[in-house]
């Protein structure tokens, strides 16, 4: 029995009375991969709300002004759709760009473009 317990939470001292072995070897707050679920929940709620309100400032202006203090769930959903729309925009731009690159054939035109875009 000693060997089995040692595998789970070796740090708990063997000096603990045998009656509290069961409780002592529950997932106790250590750096094991069983994250301290209940204690963490209380702290991270504030963190989460903080981060989510910061996220709100990243969403496009139009949505920000109207919402004021939107709920976390709504903000998460808006974030998802915003990322999707950004991705779609980039895909769209890639389409257009690849089409343009195909039709452009002279190197001099490209050189001029590059010159106009880079600091000289």
């Amino acid at each position, binding site marked *: 029995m000693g060997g089995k317990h040692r595998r789970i939470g070796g740090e708990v001292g063997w000096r603990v009375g045998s009656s509290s072995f069961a409780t002592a070897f529950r997932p106790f707050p250590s750096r094991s991969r069983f994250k301290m679920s209940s204690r963490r929940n209380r702290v*991270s709620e504030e963190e989460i709300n903080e*981060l989510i309100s910061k996220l709100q400032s990243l969403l496009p202006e139009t949505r920000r002004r109207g919402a004021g203090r939107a709920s976390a769930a709504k903000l998460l959903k808006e974030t998802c759709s915003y990322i999707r729309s950004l991705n779609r925009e980039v895909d769209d731009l*890639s389409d257009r760009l*690849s089409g343009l*690159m195909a*039709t452009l054939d002279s190197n001099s035109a490209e050189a001029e473009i590059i010159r106009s875009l880079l600091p000289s």
Partner: protein
Amino acid sequence: MADGEMTAKERKRKRGTESSSSSSAAAAAAEEEEAKWRTEGEQRTYSSRLIAALRRVRSSAAAPTDRARSRALREAADRALAVSARGRTRWSRAILLSGKARSLKRSRVLRPKPPAAASKSSRPPLEKKTRVLGRLVPGCRKLPLPSLLEEVSDYIAALQMQVRAMSAITEVLSAANAAPSPPPPPPPPQTM
């Protein structure tokens, strides 16, 4: 541009009034990095990287169809974006590794699942949306909500810059396409 900087400063000030734990210091540092996505210099650097990648894609005969070309271009743009992130974020590292490590990833799928209690770090209604969000950002599928939100903020800022840079290049290229006369007009001052 001033707008973006002011927002970053406002956010920094708000953070300064919070208790200074190590986590908020790290968060403040992350915000500074995020603000870089809005600077003109960063966008120019990204544009030149992108153009170099575009030329490579075009010269390689690997993409015959329109769709394949567009996909190759998107991948090149994403990779250039990930390089700009300088390896500081998870999503950028995931993009950079996406070509080579895909086969490795498949073999590592069978990992012992943590017990249900440990995997729930947020309330149930948020968890579903958290999972959806995690799937949208590269390399962030199993991230808990706090770290995921940091990655998301950075990812969104980077995507916004990507859109700005690619739009600008598209504009220049379509103008050059329409009027391919050799003497170009003096480039207008870039106001971002």
